[in-house]
């Protein structure tokens, strides 16, 4: 269970009560007369609903369906997946050198080629991941916050589990998860052409606007999310790496570093000035081209809210392995 899920349980016993006819009538009267003062707030509000006592506050492991999106969002930020660490999965590729840095095209080609050497994975295959997350200004910020989490998730992202601490005891919390867009089931209907995938994933949601910068960021983020969360078949993984390279503005970074300090090569989408978007980096192992990290850097910061320029949020894979079920250590 991640921190968003745990937060969702806090004050979860506050009831969600329907509106009484009296309260609705009061509101109706107010708006009908366009005299908002006729809708006495405290007296005719919903105080009466407090009379309905909800279940007693207690720690519950049962999670409402409403937590699904939060979990998905959380994993998108922290869960970086290595496609396959089985022997031969990309290990034969040649690492870039200082003398011969990779171009974006070469990076996409090598990442795709490495992915194609992976094996097919059952949707119900359990994957264990240990992730180090970091937040701070630069990777050596003495005030930076560094944490390590471990979790288990099926390849299709629908089932997950993690250890939580309840009253001083450690308990395994398992649940249904999912809620990622696109869903695992929807992946099969993604276009086969990388550029078409970009166009599809770049579609903004309601209210997200449709600037070029946002569309590019959307496509980059969603591809990263798909690669992070799901254990994909080799062909789709390969296509997604090529799609990353097709996103306008994306470049190759040959001396990237994950949150844990691992050296890597990265697909980078710089933040256009004034866009309010972070710079995104998707970091691959320079030899195997497995995905090993994700970094977001707020280049500008936010003076209003005290966010320093250059603050980064990063995650790196410390360990990842296929296991037979939740709680099974590799």
């Amino acid at each position, binding site marked *: 269970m991640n921190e968003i899920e745990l937060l969702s349980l806090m004050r979860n016993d506050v009831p*969600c009560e329907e509106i009484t006819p009296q*309260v609705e009538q009061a509101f109706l009267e107010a708006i009908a007369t366009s005299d908002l003062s006729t809708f006495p707030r405290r007296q005719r509000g919903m105080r009466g609903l407090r009379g309905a006592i909800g279940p007693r506050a207690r720690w519950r492991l049962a999670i409402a369906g*409403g937590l699904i999106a939060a979990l998905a969002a959380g994993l998108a930020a922290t869960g970086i997946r290595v496609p396959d660490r089985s022997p031969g999965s990309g290990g034969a590729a040649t690492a870039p050198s200082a003398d011969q840095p990779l171009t974006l095209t070469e990076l996409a080609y090598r990442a795709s080629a490495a992915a194609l050497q992976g094996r097919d994975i059952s949707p119900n295959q359990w994957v264990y991941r240990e992730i180090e997350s970091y937040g701070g200004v630069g990777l050596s910020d003495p005030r930076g916050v560094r944490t390590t989490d471990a979790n288990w998730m099926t390849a299709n992202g629908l089932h997950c589990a993690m250890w939580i601490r309840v009253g001083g005891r450690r308990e395994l919390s398992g649940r249904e998860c999912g809620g990622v*867009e696109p869903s695992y089931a929807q992946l099969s209907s993604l276009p086969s052409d990388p550029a078409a995938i970009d166009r599809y994933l770049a579609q903004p949601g309601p209210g*997200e606007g449709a600037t070029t910068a946002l569309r590019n960021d959307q496509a980059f983020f969603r591809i990263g999310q798909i690669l992070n969360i799901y254990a994909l078949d080799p062909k789709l993984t390969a296509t997604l790496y090529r799609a990353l390279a097709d996103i306008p503005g994306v470049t190759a970074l040959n001396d990237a570093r994950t949150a844990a300090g691992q050296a890597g090569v990265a697909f980078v989408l710089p933040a256009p000035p004034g866009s309010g978007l972070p710079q995104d980096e998707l970091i691959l192992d320079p030899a195997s081209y497995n995905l090993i990290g994700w970094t977001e850097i707020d280049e500008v910061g936010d003076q*209003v809210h005290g966010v320093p320029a250059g603050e980064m949020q990063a995650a790196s894979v410390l360990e990842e392995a296929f296991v037979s079920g939740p709680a099974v250590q590799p």
Partner: protein
Amino acid sequence: MRADRRPMRLDGGDSDADVIRRSRLQPGDFAVIFRRHAPRIRRYVVRRVGPDAADDVMSETFLAAFAQRGEYQSAYGDALPWLYGIATNLIARHRRAEIRQYRALARSGSDPVMEPFTDAAAERVTASGMHRRLAAALAALPAAHRDAVLLVAWGDLTYAEVSVALGVPIGTLRSRVSRARDRLRASLADGDPAALLDDHTDESKDGTP
């Protein structure tokens, strides 16, 4: 987006955008929006500021929404993010009280917000250590980060919807949630929640006077 997240439309099935558009000529139709969403908005507000302030905030939210319905962008079929945004802005007036309640929970384990929903004094002091730690972290978060993460966790909105609710680019929103999550995650480490509160609380970050 989860299909089960929205209440069923038992009131004619028109989208919120349709209802709001109609309410510009027939103000009474806006009651449909109130009926559909007031329970969820109030629950969210109660979780943030407690039942007493929630009555005011919830009512003001819908009155403000009614007054602003002419500006509602009909491209958004679902009005819930818009309403959450209004409610969140109104919650800002109660920020000090909100933070005090988080601190009280962190220090004592007793949650003043939950008292009306708990029927025995003995049950009140049952908040888990985990919730105490989370409360301490919430108290210490910058307001914008707290708004973002609580709309995800308690408002049950997607990132895109929170982006609409708060009127910020989704990249900015994602970054805020990510930062908030780091603080929350750090708070879950073993230790005394009250000590965590002392370490992290900085009310000036909220921009409150």
